[in-house]
């Protein structure tokens, strides 16, 4: 008798899954928060947004000046590939920007990681550098861009330095947090096996800190791309940030979108590569 009522009020499976955990199948674990494959959902979500974008632009609901259609953006991309932007081929814009970001990133790794490790290992180093690092870290790079230009001119130096500064803080803080993640038992074990302080640093602290350092590298390079447009605001004639900024002044919205997608795409590819490196280098991350 009550069967009919239940059948009528039964929610759709999707809703049911969200609100109440269904029993698991063999090989799964019950109640793990957020478990499940997301690729299908992500692909559908992206396609839906692209479709919606195409519909609102093709129907004339939004003028191309504000939002060109996805097709127009792809056409613009091919146009830029064949003719370039302001007389400079597109690949050169990409190369110049990537060069700035990755040069700054490499410099931040070379300086930031040892600095962070030293700050983690020594109270003297922490006392010396912590106030400066913590003070400048939350300042938006745009705020000290004028200083960079006054001090280092309008050339490449100020641009790379600006990006470098935005990457340095997360790198140093990540390496420092990595030092803290070492289990004290591991350090004691090494000492009781006859390790020197230098050996503890090299053989225990450094490998232990590696997962945090790699995470910091992923976060850091993101900061680098974020700062790129600011760095290319003044006296740049090349680069993706320059392209986006000057295209916006001429209301070339499709070029702006191409630039945004290129920056996002490169950053995303690098992040994928870093995740692959993580799997190869620290397969033990979070497992012990």
């Amino acid at each position, binding site marked *: 008798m009550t069967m009919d009522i239940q059948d009528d009020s039964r929610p759709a499976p999707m809703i049911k899954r969200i609100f109440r955990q269904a029993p698991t199948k063999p090989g799964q674990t019950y109640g793990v928060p957020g478990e499940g494959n997301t690729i299908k959902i992500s692909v559908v979500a992206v396609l839906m947004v692209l479709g919606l974008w195409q519909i609102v632009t093709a129907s004339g609901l939004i003028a191309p000046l504000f939002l060109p259609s996805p097709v127009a953006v792809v056409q613009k991309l091919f146009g830029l590939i064949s003719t370039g932007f302001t007389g400079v081929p597109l690949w050169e814009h990409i190369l110049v920007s990537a060069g700035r970001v990755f040069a700054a990133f490499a410099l931040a790794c070379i300086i930031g990681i040892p600095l962070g490790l030293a700050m983690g290992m020594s109270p003297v180093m922490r006392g010396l550098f912590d106030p400066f690092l913590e003070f400048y870290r939350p300042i938006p790079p745009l705020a000290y861009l004028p200083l960079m230009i006054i001090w280092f001119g309008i050339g490449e130096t100020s641009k790379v330095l600006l990006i470098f500064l935005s990457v340095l803080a997360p790198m140093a803080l990540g390496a420092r947090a990595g030092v803290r993640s070492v*289990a004290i*038992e*591991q350090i*004691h*074990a*090494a*000492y*009781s*096996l*006859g*390790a*020197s302080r230098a*050996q503890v640093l090299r*053989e*225990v602290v450094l*490998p232990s800190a*590696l997962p945090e350092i790699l995470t910091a590298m992923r976060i850091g390079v993101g900061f680098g791309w974020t700062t790129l447009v600011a760095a290319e605001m003044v006296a740049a004639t090349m680069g993706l940030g320059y392209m986006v900024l000057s295209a916006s002044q001429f209301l070339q919205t499709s070029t702006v979108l191409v630039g945004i997608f290129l920056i996002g795409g490169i950053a995303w590819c690098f992040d994928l590569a870093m995740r692959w490196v993580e799997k190869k280098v*620290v*397969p*033990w991350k979070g*497992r*012990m």
Partner: protein
Amino acid sequence: MLEIRRASVLYPARDKSEPVEALRNVELTIEPGEFVVALGASGCGKSTLLNLIAGFLAPSSGQIKLDGAPVTGPGQDRAVVFQKHALMPWMNVLDNLAFGLKLQGVAKAERYKVAREFLTVLGLEGFEDSPVYMLSGGMQQRVGIGRALTADPRILLMDEPLGALDALTRERAQELILKIWEAQGKSVFLITHSVEEALFMGSKLIVMSPRPGRITHRFDLPFSRRFLAGESARDVKASPEFIAMRETILGIIFADEEKAA
């Protein structure tokens, strides 16, 4: 020979709390080849005592000497086995076993040779290339014990090494440790919460009491010798002498716990 002479440890007062007397006037001698087990209610200072011997902690007063030389810090002559194995997950089993020798600058071929010998002793053949995080808890603990042994210490310090293992694995690990102890002839200092484990493994038992942490009772134990002479572990643990001893020790410890409550 390890000698502890009138060693006291006083933890300084912190946040309005009283200073804690973790150890008071501890006297203990560990002869070469002796297996000393420390047992006691929580807070009795057994871990503090182990940290003193390991050199992770300096005594407030008194002294600790190993073969006549004062202990001033951790060193390769006193290898520690931890409750949470503390292995290095970025190394495979063989490299973990050979870690101490690597720190001492022994060449790769030589240290792998030594590590392989212990691989067999510990029953870990075939796992030399496995990452340690893939091993079961019992196997990880065996690697931890093997790592301490390859460094060839004068004395092996074990801080509740089997506490995290299930009952069956634990008993087998006890037997393995005893067999290695017999074969290597090392001094051992082991901390445990389990009365049965203490009685079965030790050649000498010290019972400790809290507030202040001190040694209250000392017993010489015959049971591990009987096991190594060929008697089965179950027979040893079921023998009337073993059971009588267990009741005596439990009586002491329960009295301590009741005083605390």
